[in-house]
């Protein structure tokens, strides 16, 4: 370890570091500064806006489970996540599979599947409220009305107002919004598989399905994983969608809505921050292993 190479290494890495440093500072302050602040409030035991900041040794993380609305919020978030992530992945992959071979009007189909990403739920919330309305046949509106008219009355259901499975219906608009994006990712992935590989498999007598099963899909694991991460974190933090369609009603209560209610309605900063910390931890459990894994495998590559 002579000083010369060390200095050379410094000279080599300094410009890069300088160029990124504004971003490092900004992220440090706006992201980690606020995460720190949030954690501080979560353990402060400050359940109103006038008490001083104390330290409750993390009691609120336990107490929260005794809040009447909290266990339901967690259950809702899990059900929503399962249906939304699973649904968007499957539908997106299926659409990409249908389009993979090239099809007339591909650009048009792609545009139709992608455009829901462009519309915020502030804008489309009312329509979804109409579509998923559980009124009985004589007053039916939305999709149920359509089902009754088409003689498919059996399909009519309570949508998100079903006490048990409602959150599964709530995932439909989210699937609508994001599956086009998943489709685009998979389509890009499919097209990235060299034709020679598929051809070789075909020569070996593989059926078209087997080509996908054994040649194409295994190469798409990274795509699946990154789609999973993006969908997963959107799902855990789902807020706009619920607020636009159902508002703050208990029947669709989820943690992100709970944070908002605790901070702004109940004026309980500690509870709000505790829920936010849970959300952050949930996302971290999902994301950090992926981040570490992807950075590491890349280095090997």
């Amino acid at each position: 370890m002579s000083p010369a190479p060390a200095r050379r290494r410094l000279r080599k890495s300094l410009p890069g570091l300088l160029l990124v440093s504004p971003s490092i500072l900004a992220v440090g302050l706006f992201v980690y500064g606020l995460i720190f602040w949030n954690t501080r409030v979560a353990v402060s035991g400050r359940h109103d806006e006038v008490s001083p900041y104390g330290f409750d040794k993390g009691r609120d993380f336990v107490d929260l489970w005794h809040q009447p609305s909290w266990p339901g919020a967690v259950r809702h978030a899990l059900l929503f996540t399962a249906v939304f992530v699973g649904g968007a992945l499957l539908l997106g992959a299926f659409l990409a599979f249908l389009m993979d071979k090239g099809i007339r009007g591909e650009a048009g189909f792609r545009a139709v599947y992608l455009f829901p990403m462009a519309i915020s739920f502030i804008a489309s919330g009312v329509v979804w409220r109409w579509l998923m309305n559980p009124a009985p046949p004589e007053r039916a509106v939305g999709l149920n009305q359509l089902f009754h008219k088409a003689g498919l009355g059996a399909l009519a259901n309570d949508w998100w107002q079903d006490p048990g499975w409602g959150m599964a219906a709530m995932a439909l608009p989210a699937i609508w919004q994001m599956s086009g994006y998943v489709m685009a990712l998979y389509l890009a992935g499919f097209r990235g598989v060299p034709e020679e590989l598929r051809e070789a498999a075909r020569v070996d007598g593989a059926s078209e399905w087997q080509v996908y099963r054994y040649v194409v899909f295994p190469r798409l694991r990274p795509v699946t994983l990154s789609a999973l991460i993006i969908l997963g974190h959107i799902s855990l933090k789902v807020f706009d969608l619920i607020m636009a369609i159902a508002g703050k009603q208990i029947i669709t209560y989820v943690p992100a809505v709970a944070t908002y209610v605790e901070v702004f309605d109940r004026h309980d900063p500690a509870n709000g921050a505790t829920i936010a910390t849970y959300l952050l931890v949930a996302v971290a459990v999902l994301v950090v292993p992926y981040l570490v894994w992807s950075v590491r495998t890349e280095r090997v590559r």
Partner: protein
Amino acid sequence: MTRVLRPALLLLFAVLFLIPVYVLVVTSLKPFAEAGPQQAWSLPAHWSLAGWRSAWTTLRPGLVNSVKIAVTGSLLSAVLGSLNGYVLAKWRFPGADAVFTLFLFGMFIPYQAVMIPLAGLLTHLELAGTIRGLVLAHVVYGIPICTLIFRNYYVTVPDELVEAARVDGAGILRTYAWIVLPLSGPAFAVTLIWQFTSLWNDFLFAVFLGAPDSWPVTVLLNNTAGSGAVAVQYDQQMASALLASLPTLLVYLLLGRFFMRGLMAGALKG
């Protein structure tokens, strides 16, 4: 069989995807008395542009603000993301991976919880309520995703290109300008489209960090719903919703293939 089945299935899904838009469009073109959930499926008996007209009057100031915020914000985000991605992929320093990981984790912060201190931060910077403040917040919270897109894209650029320029004595910025930037088209397309969409559609930052004269269209759209003792003017509401979404819709319809091309070139995957 599959030759018929594939297009048929694709068509079926396309129709399903278009259902909400059908309702939006049809309702926006009905007169007030006709616009309502009961008649959501039927075409207008009388066509009317009244909803669109009042939507335009109400939303116009917000549209101007939204353009300012979304255009400046996404351009700045893209430039910053490009520089970060370039350094983290090609001009690495010790700890670069750690920095990247820490950046990425920033994508996942639940904003509702930190809104009050965030607004406080901007108040201290004397940027609260201004368009500049909103742009700053968007650019900062856009750093993770933009850096991710560009870095993943630049990883696919052969190291030899950059090395060659370095050997020729080009510095970090010159190498960027000569070698890397000209190759960056697809990643810029993805970033700009992605950021433009999310900045345009943002409501949370806008309502907490903005002020009446800097409110973008989403806040005004939310205000048209009103809160008072009046009928909901669904024709106007639907027209407003469409009007507010029009720019992002156009971006996807017109530039969607650049988005796809950028994805295929390696941005935002894997």
